[in-house]
């Protein structure tokens, strides 16, 4: 069990970039017409977003908006990490490509993390670990998360088409060396025997296709996510770190409801964006968090789970105010 704790970590801003193009599951032609309503009720997903643009373009817009939102300059960013599994050209890393396009400082640490639904928490943990080691007055990082998952779907796949959606998110994070109070705790776990729950294969036309085994994702989520969260909160051992809200990766309603039921959570403490945006992979946590940011300034629990099989939860103390915006392109 890899539980880590970090002091002085502060989220300074979040920008979500969501494609404007909307797909409606009630109009999805590959699903029989009399099954569509049931599909929407059971998955909790009516609308999904699809991007014709590569993921790099979405990240680029997100970075530009995040710099404006925080007032940071190009010389302020010490770390740039991209969490994605849908970059068109993976050499060089997308982080390096974005570094070049935005002319960040030469001293910036840049790399990609290959992670999906647990990726936001993985990225936060990686940045929290790195920032405290940087010799700077106010070490700062940009965490870019998200995918254009619809680019990897087979047009006739009734398992993936109704679920996956495109979006990205950019989170600005700062380390305060003078704040020695714990502001972030993480519990990252891997269940590699679940590697075929979500996976990529090449089809007959040599095109990359993502496959989803919904029953196994359900089984692994229900079996491993509640215990991961319980262990993290027990590790905190402080009543004042009790999360005000629980922000889960937006997988689908069947899975999320089962996890919430196992933890016996009050549904009012669990924001949900499935109906509007579908499953946006590693962008789903920050997108969903932003729906409650204006009314939350305390501890929040973030939990991502999926492809890997990977489970990652974070207990984060939010600052009093986190500027945020969600834009459509």
């Amino acid at each position, binding site marked *: 069990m890899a539980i880590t704790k970090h002091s002085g970590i502060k989220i300074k801003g979040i920008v979500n970039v969501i494609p404007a193009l909307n797909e409606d599951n009630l109009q999805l032609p590959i699903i029989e017409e009399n099954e569509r309503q049931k599909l929407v009720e059971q998955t909790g997903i009516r609308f999904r977003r699809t991007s014709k643009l590569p993921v790099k373009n979405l990240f680029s817009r997100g970075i530009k908006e995040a710099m404006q939102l925080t007032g940071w300059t190009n010389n302020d960013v010490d770390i740039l990490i991209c969490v994605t599994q849908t970059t068109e050209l993976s050499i060089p890393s997308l982080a390096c490509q974005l570094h070049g396009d935005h002319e960040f400082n030469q001293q910036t640490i840049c790399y990609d993390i290959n992670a999906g639904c647990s990726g936001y928490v993985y990225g936060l943990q990686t940045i929290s670990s790195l920032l405290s080691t940087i010799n700077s007055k106010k070490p700062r990082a940009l965490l870019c998360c998200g995918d254009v998952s619809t680019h990897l779907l087979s047009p006739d796949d009734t398992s993936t088409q109704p679920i996956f959606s495109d979006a990205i998110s950019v989170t600005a994070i700062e380390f305060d060396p003078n704040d020695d109070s714990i502001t972030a705790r993480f519990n990252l776990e891997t269940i590699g025997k679940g590697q075929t729950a979500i996976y990529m294969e090449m089809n007959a036309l040599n095109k990359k296709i993502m496959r989803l085994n919904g029953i196994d994702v359900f089984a692994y989520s229900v079996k491993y996510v509640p215990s991961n969260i319980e262990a993290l*909160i*027990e590790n905190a051992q402080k009543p004042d770190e009790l999360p005000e809200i629980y922000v889960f990766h937006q997988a689908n309603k069947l899975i999320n409801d089962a996890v919430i039921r196992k933890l016996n959570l009050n549904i009012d403490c669990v924001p949900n964006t499935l109906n509007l945006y579908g499953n946006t992979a590693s962008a789903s946590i920050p997108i969903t968090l932003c729906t409650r940011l204006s009314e939350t300034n305390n501890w929040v629990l973030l939990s991502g789970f999926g492809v890997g099989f990977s489970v990652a939860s974070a207990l984060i103390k939010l600052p009093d105010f986190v500027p945020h915006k969600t834009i459509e392109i």
Partner: protein
Amino acid sequence: MKETENNWSYIIFVRFEEKMSLPLNEIETFLDFTSSELSISKNSISLETRFRDIPSWSSLNALIYISRINEETNVLITSGDLSEIVNLGDIYKLIKERSNGYN
């Protein structure tokens, strides 16, 4: 006081008791449940029915069915389990074997 502080988290997570709310380990209840969940007349199914031959069996309905079994019994069934079994009686047997907790 110290003990109370250390045990606070157990107060937060009072998990649902891991027991059946529907006795799906009884054949009649299991067939009633399956008939309702898979939208098929109870008269047309038995423990010998091959679940893949049920007209409503699809990737979505199979997931809903498996999730409902978990909701009622806390039993988890994987795709690996389904690949090794054939009929409803096999699912019933899995529920019966695993209904004492997680598996």
